[in-house]
């Protein structure tokens, strides 16, 4: 039997291995994309483009961080896109229609995510449903729920200049006439915190272990159901955070919307090296992958490709990312 170690001088270099080949490739691709768009479009070189990329990045990053935990257990959470809209609708409804304090709306938004995440986690871990199906069902439920609570009408969160519009400055602060993407700081802080949680705490370790070999983890005396549920709870809470980020960037939500956004977030995680088969993935990779998605979403319209072309290009990017995942798994086998 030959040794399984393979690869070349580059992939076996300790520094490269510590960072991960895929992340290095993603960074190179990201830089290449930014250079390409800058060269092709003068508009892309504007400061406002950075703000626009950031608007996409915030909510995708939160969704991506959350769903990365589900993906690492070998599952998935499809309810995050419509969930994000649903929770933002409910929170916004309380603030604008019921005139509750803004803080109540924020707490309820995150709480909705927490509850739906727990429901997803229990259906998967205790109910034994396939994660794909379980979260597809809850996706339908939240799609309907948001519309029912708002009575079918769109909700617009308070604008930046409105007296209760301070939530927007949490992500985009106006300092001396310049808009500063403050949200980037929050994304980074949470990314670092969740990265430590994933790699340095017991729940994180067990989430990886479950995705790697669920039965072996169970035989090691780990309560698999609990940690599997935790992964979905994290996904739910981060969907709540994403709802805040989304309402801060785009202000209004239509009931029943948000479908398809989950695929951009999952796509970001996969581009960043998280495996669809579970067991491996990093938060840093997900953040990088999400940047690829948000740069594409901002850059493509600026070089004159409209929405339909964007979908095709993002689809193609995902096929390549998943193919890399397939190749990696072949090597492991």
């Amino acid at each position, binding site marked *: *039997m030959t040794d399984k170690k393979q690869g070349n001088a580059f992939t076996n270099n300790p520094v490269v291995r510590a960072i991960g080949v895929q992340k290095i490739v993603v960074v190179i691709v990201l830089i290449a994309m930014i250079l390409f768009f800058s060269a092709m479009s003068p508009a892309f070189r504007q400061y406002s483009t950075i703000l626009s990329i950031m608007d996409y990045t915030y909510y995708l990053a939160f969704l991506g961080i959350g769903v990365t935990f589900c993906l690492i257990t070998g599952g998935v959470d499809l309810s995050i896109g419509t969930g994000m809209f649903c929770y933002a609708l409910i929170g916004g409804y309380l603030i604008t229609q019921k005139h509750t304090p803004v803080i109540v709306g924020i707490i309820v938004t995150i709480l909705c995510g927490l509850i739906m995440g727990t429901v997803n986690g229990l259906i998967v871990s205790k109910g034994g449903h396939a994660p794909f199906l379980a979260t597809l069902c809850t996706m339908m439920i939240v799609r309907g729920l948001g519309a029912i609570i708002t009575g079918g009408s769109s909700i617009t969160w308070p604008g930046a200049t409105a007296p209760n519009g301070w939530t927007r400055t949490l992500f985009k602060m106006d300092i001396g006439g310049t808009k500063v993407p403050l949200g980037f700081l929050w994304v980074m802080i949470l990314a670092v915190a969740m990265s430590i949680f994933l790699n340095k705490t017991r729940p994180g*370790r067990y989430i990886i272990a479950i995705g790697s070999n669920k039965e*072996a*983890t169970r035989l*090691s005396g780990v309560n698999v159901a609990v940690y599997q549920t935790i992964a979905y709870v994290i996904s739910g809470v981060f969907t709540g955070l994403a709802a805040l980020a989304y309402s801060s960037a785009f202000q209004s939500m239509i009931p029943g919307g948000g479908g398809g956004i989950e695929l951009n977030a999952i796509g970001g995680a996969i581009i960043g090296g998280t495996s669809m088969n579970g067991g491996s993935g990093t938060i840093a990779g997900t953040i990088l992958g999400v940047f690829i998605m948000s740069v594409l979403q901002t850059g493509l319209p600026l070089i004159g490709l409209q929405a339909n072309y964007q979908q095709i290009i993002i689809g193609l990017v995902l096929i390549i990312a998943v193919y890399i995942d397939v190749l990696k798994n072949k090597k492991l086998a």
Partner: protein
Amino acid sequence: MGDVILTMKGIDKSFPGVHALDHVDLEVKKGEVHALMGENGAGKSTLMKVLTGIYSKDEGTITYEGKEVEFSNPREAQDAGIVIVHQELNMLGHLTVAQNIFIGREIMNGKLINDKKMNEEAAKLFEQLGIDIDPKETMSRLTVGKQQMCEIAKAISHEAKVIIFDEPSAALTEAEIEELFKIIRDLRDKQMGIVYISHRMDEIKVITDRVTVMRDGGYVGTLITKDSTKDDIINMMVGRVIYEDPKTESAVPKDAPVVLKVEHLNAGRMVRDVSFELRKGEILGFSGLMGAGRTETARALFGADPKEGGDIYVNGEKIEIKTPQDAVKHGIGYLSEDRKRYGIVVDKTIAENSTMASLEHFMKGAFIDKKRENEVAQQYVETLKTKTPGVDQLVVNLSGGNQQKVVIAKWLVRNCDILIFDEPTRGIDVGAKSEIYQLMNELVAEGKSIIMISSEMTEILRMSDRIVVMCEGRKTGELDISEATQERIMHAATLRD
């Protein structure tokens, strides 16, 4: 050898329809390596599962360190100091070696895991065992041998007093086995009790102090290894009982044409330079122990797994088989050992299953000719005597034997002349068994040819005209039925390089 640490006495265990363990005894002393031997299905693994609390026993006592014990799960047994190093490794491929060893009982530094300390502790364990493994390496990057060493390190870190090795050498190279033996001897010198399950006669002589032999769920006896010969042990394993009438003479005429010739087939570790011929009207038995590479040979031949080399001739003509479609095109049908997974679609009807492999012959334009499908299925239900109210019955509702008949029908509808039966009677009750045997005899009488892979010695001796014996991916013997005996087959099946 020191004092007795573990005694299992009169252990009895039944599953519905199977008497798995019939009053089995086992005694392990401190500082001994105790071999547990027996054919496939003799009950060795069941006995160990009873010991470690995976199964509960119906009768008998287990005494450990002077006290009667009964563990209700592997974790309790582990905490008491009895651990199994499984044949199939329970590893977490994505985590590091140290993370694997300490899974479920991580060393903590407040709320955070102390990976540094875990790496140090793992390094200490490896040093103690004299193994060179980097605790920070990712598990899946290690060789199977090294992974096994990690399992052993994990076992020892539980402060084990009794370690059970379940066929540890099955996937190891010579050098790795040497390393394994060195470790086992060290553990023995530290007064641990070691149970060593293996089929390999040569290893038993090298590493063990005593041998307990089991047969058909029963206890046969215990020998001191150095005072007994290989033949003594084999005789105990196969017994002297004559089962049902074995075939004494080949039914194939001397001049029967060769319908299938395989030359120098190679596919991975489990199929190494295998050559054989199959003649018209012949049942060619493939015998060997678990993991001998018989199924792998069949799958490579059938195109289900990729092969690295080898020539295949059907009716004297050299053919290329790259996919199962190619094999089917040349009239080769494969009846998998795992019926439910590869053989049938359980929630479809008998008719649908029967035409599955030859649907293109049942088309009327773009549509399936349901009427003819039913007619043909009905015809085979009658010839094969499948017990069912009708061909529209779902296969899931049939018994094992009748399900097997549906699989046979599928390949007969396809008009396959060469049929590979992989464990044709696994999970089938005795009555249905003889029906399947009769059916196989009728098929060869009609001029079909059969390759029969079987782990049951009686089945091999009863059905085969000729027997190919395999061991570790190589063909280690070929016997005409007139010269075949259980002892000879077992000898070839344990023949190592």
